């Protein structure tokens, strides 16, 4: 379902609106009504073509791992991944519950709270051979 911005939310820029949605447990993406194109990270325009008729839509939440690394430090390791969302845009995120996962694996988003901040992370739902 697309959603035109609520009046109260419209007082905020897209970045703050996105974070506000996240804090409500919702992973939302912007889409241009005229071109149908999605954009992430949230902006005031579709980059390159400039459409400003953007509405928020609930993300499908599914995507594919495009690239992944494991940052190793004495204090602990964590992975950092680039996820190609099924809607098109790419985002940085983390694969939960495991050290790493093969590129090409299918993943599904969920929202967690970490250090008081709501954020999107992904679980592997279909692993491909490395």
């Amino acid at each position, binding site marked *: 379902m697309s959603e035109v911005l609520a009046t109260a939310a419209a007082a905020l820029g897209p970045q703050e609106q996105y974070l506000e949605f996240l804090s409500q447990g919702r992973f939302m993406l912007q889409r241009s009504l005229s071109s149908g194109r999605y954009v992430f990270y949230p902006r005031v325009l579709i980059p390159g073509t400039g459409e400003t008729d953007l509405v928020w839509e609930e993300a499908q939440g599914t995507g594919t791992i495009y690239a992944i690394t494991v*940052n*190793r430090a004495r204090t602990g390791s964590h992975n*950092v991944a*680039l996820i190609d969302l099924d809607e098109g845009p790419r985002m*940085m995120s983390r694969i939960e519950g495991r050290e790493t996962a093969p590129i090409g694996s299918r993943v599904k988003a969920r929202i967690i709270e*970490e250090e008081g901040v709501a954020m999107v992370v992904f679980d592997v739902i279909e692993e491909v051979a490395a």
Partner: protein
Amino acid sequence: MNQAIRGKTAIVGIGTAGVGEAKGFSAMELLGQASLQAIADAGLQLQDIDGIFAATSSHAFPTLSVAEYLGIKPSYVDGTNIGGSSFEMHLLQATLALEAGLCNAALVCYGSNQRTAGGRLVSMSEPQWHEAFYKPRHPITSYSLAASRHMHQYGTTREMLGEVAVSARQWANLNPEAFARGPLTLDDVMASRMVSDPLSSADCCLVTDGGAACVLVRADRARDLQRKPAYFLGAAGAQWHRSVVAMPDLTVTAASESGPRAMEMAGVSHADIDLVMLYDAFTINTILFLEDLGFCPKGEGGRFVQGGHIAPGGGLAVNTNGGGLSCVHPGMYGLFLIIEAVRQIRGEAGARQLKKADIALLHGNGGTLSSQVTAFLGSENAL
């Protein structure tokens, strides 16, 4: 493409200071020492400098800080900051300013004390809000992501990446100024500590101190000065993204755009190029840039570097100073590419001197594979 500025300016003086470790010296002090050396090398006086081109990781307004420190009131400045590639761009900006008569002697300069000041990469680069949740450790996270994708897509291996580090070390062992010297085998690289998969500590550039500077004048004046001029042949920059998230294809950098444009301006083809200086912040850089600059097909960079092909005595002379991996990397390495190219073109490179060094390609990289600037320098024979 416009070749109107090809050969119209030349580098007539170079200087370095504190390459490696310079305990007790500030970034500006190293920049100042390198600048004085470059000006003296050119046979000019400090008061002859009327154009300043500068970028550092520690000065918000680098041209203001440099002008004040040196006591110069420049008629033209440019502080373009596109990370480590800034200085290749400064060659282009300085050439444009000199040709337009906006200045007569251009100083391109840089200094950093990041090794002795803290031993960590110093950066004024701000976190990207949409990435910050996931604690990326830039720059290495971005380069590791690119390496992971290249390995996935093209079968590039850690051994191939390691070969880049080994080749760089072999060149460094011929360079008395290089900071990391001594034997380094592929086994050593493979056994080194993993930092960010698939890149290990041996895949990462050094963290050193160092200042560097060069002086450019118009070509007619260059011929009257004491040093053999290194002529500006062409340059082009391409900027496609800021954050690695916005890089369309992590296996294709904007060097694939800057390279052809610079080659056209310089009027050179691959067979003409004697020296290739690539910004090797990480081993994957060398592989990506060899591909994107057209030395081998996309995806073949890993296989291209195998068997010592870019090592001393190999088929292509790449990073003859030892590169950012083994010579020097004070945070923004781009000016050191220029220093080595000028030394080779002058015939002052000692044990690592190439038999023929008439045309050098310099490729600067900035940010997280974000800014790509390709430049060409050449000897009198290249004109």
